[in-house]
């Protein structure tokens, strides 16, 4: 049994998830490959979006992989940090936007 929940070496094993369910894994990887290939957005742009989302979902594997990808694609440190801020702002904003629900409820139950 691992001593930690996350092991950097597990990132290399991502491709092995088909071992327990091959059909779904094959479909997933085909779709994943299509999503990240050039479309209306470039592969480079997609790597920056992925980096921001990786932070929002706090996936250490994705942060590892997409940081390398963004550096490789020529994004500067400040561009990458700004992308993370965008993700963080959406996350913060989403939390705060829910406070309207809290305010509504307070008003509903108050005299």
């Amino acid at each position: 049994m691992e001593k930690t929940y996350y092991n950097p070496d597990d990132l290399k094993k991502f491709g092995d998830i088909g071992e327990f369910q091959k059909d779904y894994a094959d479909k997933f990887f085909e779709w994943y490959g299509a999503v990240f290939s050039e479309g209306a957005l470039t592969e480079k742009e997609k790597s920056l979006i992925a980096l921001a989302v990786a932070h929002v979902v706090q996936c250490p594997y994705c942060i590892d992989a997409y940081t390398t990808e963004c550096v490789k694609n020529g994004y500067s440190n400040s561009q990458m940090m700004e992308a993370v801020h965008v993700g963080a702002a959406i996350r913060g904003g989403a939390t705060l936007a829910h406070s309207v629900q809290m305010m509504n409820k307070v008003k509903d139950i108050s005299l």
Partner: protein
Amino acid sequence: MKDEYHKILEFNSDPESQLKILEEVTRISDRVPFFKEKLTASGLTEFKPAGIQVLQINLGNLCNQACKHCHVNAGPAKTEIMDLKTLKQCLEAIRNHRIPLVDITGGAPEMNPDFRWFVGELRKLDKKVIVRCNLTIFFEGAKYNDLPAFYADNGLEVVASLPFYSADRTDNMRGKGVFEKSVQGLRLLNENGYGQKDSGLMLNLVYNPSGAFLSASQKLLEDEFRHILFDRYGIEFNNLFTINNMPVSRFLDYLLRSGNYIAYIEHLVNAFNPVAAAGSGSSCGGSIV
């Protein structure tokens, strides 16, 4: 992702120790098959020599720079310089074997005292000549200032290193102030006709990653370099070649010290491209280095 292998794999610059370190990786990682296995799995055979089309000559490891990734361990204090006698033997070989293309590299090849003489002799033999230029050499004193004109007069093709289109990444790898000097160097080459439409003077740039990662696609980087270098500095060039750093010499030392060695080799091996391998079978098969 840091690996711990630097603790057992100590960098030692002699070639045999380096080979041992490179062989060791196949034992440590189960994700690094031998190149031969990769070739066989892709239905390719081992490379075979196919005549000599290119002779690449390293004129010595003396260089005005000491880049962190340098795979020939070049620098200002280095003393291995190809002597005149050996250069004459090279000329003899070029003549006898009718080698059409000579690719001159270093160190900074221009620092070899016989560089200009050698180029002149190659011209007399009517050979196509490529010079690998680090761009900052032009500013190392009066005797190098006219190099762009010398290149142009002799119709040399210039392959110039520029790791990135921004100062931070370039300087981090090649030394403080190198980016700015490289920009000036490229401007001088442009002024002498290099990279200019219809001049026939080829200026090709070489990008290599400034760390433990592989290059992005050549097309993507070429488009960005072209657009950014022109918009910001008015610089033009013909092609950009993207290469990856060889895990030898200073770059190997860096990989070991930074704990990136195994991960880098695994990436490199995973990036094996059968199409490129098939292509190198025919192009490297015609080169002697």
